[in-house]
């Protein structure tokens, strides 16, 4: 507002939150869904039987109003995890602490079971691209991202999860494979992993590697969450579009993943051309059946 403004504010009493959001007690387990504003009402009205939701924290960090109202109602009923896209961990820019502070406030308010972002950069020289861009797999890039993850973890006071991103290019300068890079990030930064099974498949097709060997190569004990999503086939490459059902090839890969890493919480991401809630729910049920098979094998 205005610089000459108010030392005293008669409306302040009304602005303060009357009470803290009551939080659902359950833990994040099994297969959940990524929450979309389009589904707020159907979830709340039907009391949808979803074990937990993943929240795209960036959509709630910068304002109030209906989004926060609905997030409060959701959080009263369901456990949640936070996912974010703005940390720009692989960038050489200084971390954006204004952004991280907003995240921290949101974390304190909604108490997600964990927080994740990506092995990617979204900004450089202060310019934001609002797109997850791949880093080169080099020693310098590794040191850079490790130091950023460490500082984010220090600031948030918790270990974070980092997600393997999809990519459509290869840097000449890369000296490590993607899985070597990931394993080193996790080891040096002491962080956890969010394994996006669709991204593994998309990259395996775009780069020509065996996705099962990829799954075998990553540090299994660090994988705390998985993502499933749909891609779009553009003929010469697959695009991680999050705008379709999970493909049969990715379902098959997910079976392999749950066999190698049983019991890892998984969610379906769908944020373009978002369908009716029932469609998402059916995808969730299918994933839950896979997840159960992984669990029963262990038992």
């Amino acid at each position, binding site marked *: 507002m205005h610089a000459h403004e*108010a030392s005293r504010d008669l409306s302040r009493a009304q602005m303060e939150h009357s009470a803290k959001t009551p939080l659902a007690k359950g833990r994040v387990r099994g297969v959940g869904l990524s929450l979309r504003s389009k589904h707020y009402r159907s979830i709340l009205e039907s009391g949808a039987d979803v074990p937990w939701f993943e929240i795209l924290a*960036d*959509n709630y960090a910068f304002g109030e109003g209906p989004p926060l109202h609905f997030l409060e109602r959701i959080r009263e009923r369901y456990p949640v995890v936070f996912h974010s896209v703005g940390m720009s961990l692989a960038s050489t820019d200084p971390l954006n602490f204004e952004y991280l502070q907003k995240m921290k406030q949101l974390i304190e308010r909604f108490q997600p079971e964990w927080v994740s972002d990506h092995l990617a950069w979204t900004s450089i020289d*202060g310019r934001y691209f609002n797109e997850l861009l791949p880093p*080169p797999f080099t020693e*310098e890039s590794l040191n850079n991202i490790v130091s950023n993850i460490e500082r984010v973890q220090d600031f948030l006071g918790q270990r974070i999860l980092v997600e393997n991103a999809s990519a459509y290019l*290869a*840097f000449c*300068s890369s000296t490590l494979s993607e899985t070597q890079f990931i394993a080193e990030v996790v080891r040096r930064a002491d962080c956890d992993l969010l394994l996006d099974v669709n991204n593994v498949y998309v990259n395996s097709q775009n780069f020509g590697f065996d996705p099962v060997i990829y799954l075998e190569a990553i540090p299994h004990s660090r994988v705390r969450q998985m993502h499933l999503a749909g891609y779009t086939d553009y003929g010469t490459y697959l695009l991680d579009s999050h705008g379709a059902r999970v493909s049969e090839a990715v379902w098959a890969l997910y079976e392999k993943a749950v066999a190698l890493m049983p019991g890892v919480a998984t969610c379906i991401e769908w944020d373009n051309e978002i369908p009716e809630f029932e469609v998402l729910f059916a995808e969730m049920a299918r994933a839950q059946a896979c997840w159960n098979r992984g669990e029963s094998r262990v038992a």
Partner: protein
Amino acid sequence: MLHDLLAQMGEAFAKTPHASSTQNRVDEIALQKLLPLPRLSAEESLRVYQRNLEGSLLKALREIFPVCAALVGEDCFRTIARQYGEAHPSLHPDLGRRGDAFPSFVQMLDFLSSVPYLPDMARLELAWHQAFTAANLPPLTEEAAKNLATIVAQYPAFWRFILPPSAKCIISPYPILQIWRAHQRDESGEIHLERDQHKIESDLQSIHFDEKPDRLLVWRRELALRIDRVEPQFWPLLTAIESGKSIAELLELGSETKNTLQEEMEDAEASDFEPLLNWFREFFARGWLAGCSEIAR
């Protein structure tokens, strides 16, 4: 150096796909850093990112300005979005702020002179978008208003009213509210994009352009977004509150406004014009007043 590599790639990604030869230098530098993939040349890799970035900006703008997008059509909106993206790179991680400079940007584009109401429509849509996530500050309660009146009346020069944080006054010589409404599905505020160009044209033909200017207040009451029409006699006062004028200044303005309006208004409304005190009651009743704040001395 990692920084240089990312900066060069960022610059190349942000270019329009298949841009003219003047931009090839940027592409060339980026291409030197890339290897081909099994089914994708380095150049095609670069295009994928250029298209993705363009697509995400277009999507963000279309979500904030659906009516503007419908009014100018897909191709034109894409052209505007490209130029906007180049002129106004995003400097904030919040995608919700991506359209903040869009209304003033479209105002400067000569090729849009055939849709002169577009900048005002963009302002209306931006205000609507911003009101959605604005801070919560409920309208004054009756009791709070009474307490407030006694304090404020003693020192009117040191106090000012505050509107809800979501509130934005918008004036246009065009019937933007009517055009905007023609593009909504229902009163709940859910946007419905009319993809059928003929439908839009026929809607526009039914709109009367000889109406008086639109004076609008976009704001949010609790969870409900609203656009209120503001009567001409209230406009100077409401915009003065919005710009942070003290209550003493409002009182002065109020008496001036009253005189001018009485001269100008030839119909029965003139005689209905109520004394100044009434506007406070009226604004309060409509929920337009969220409080008062002290002006630093």
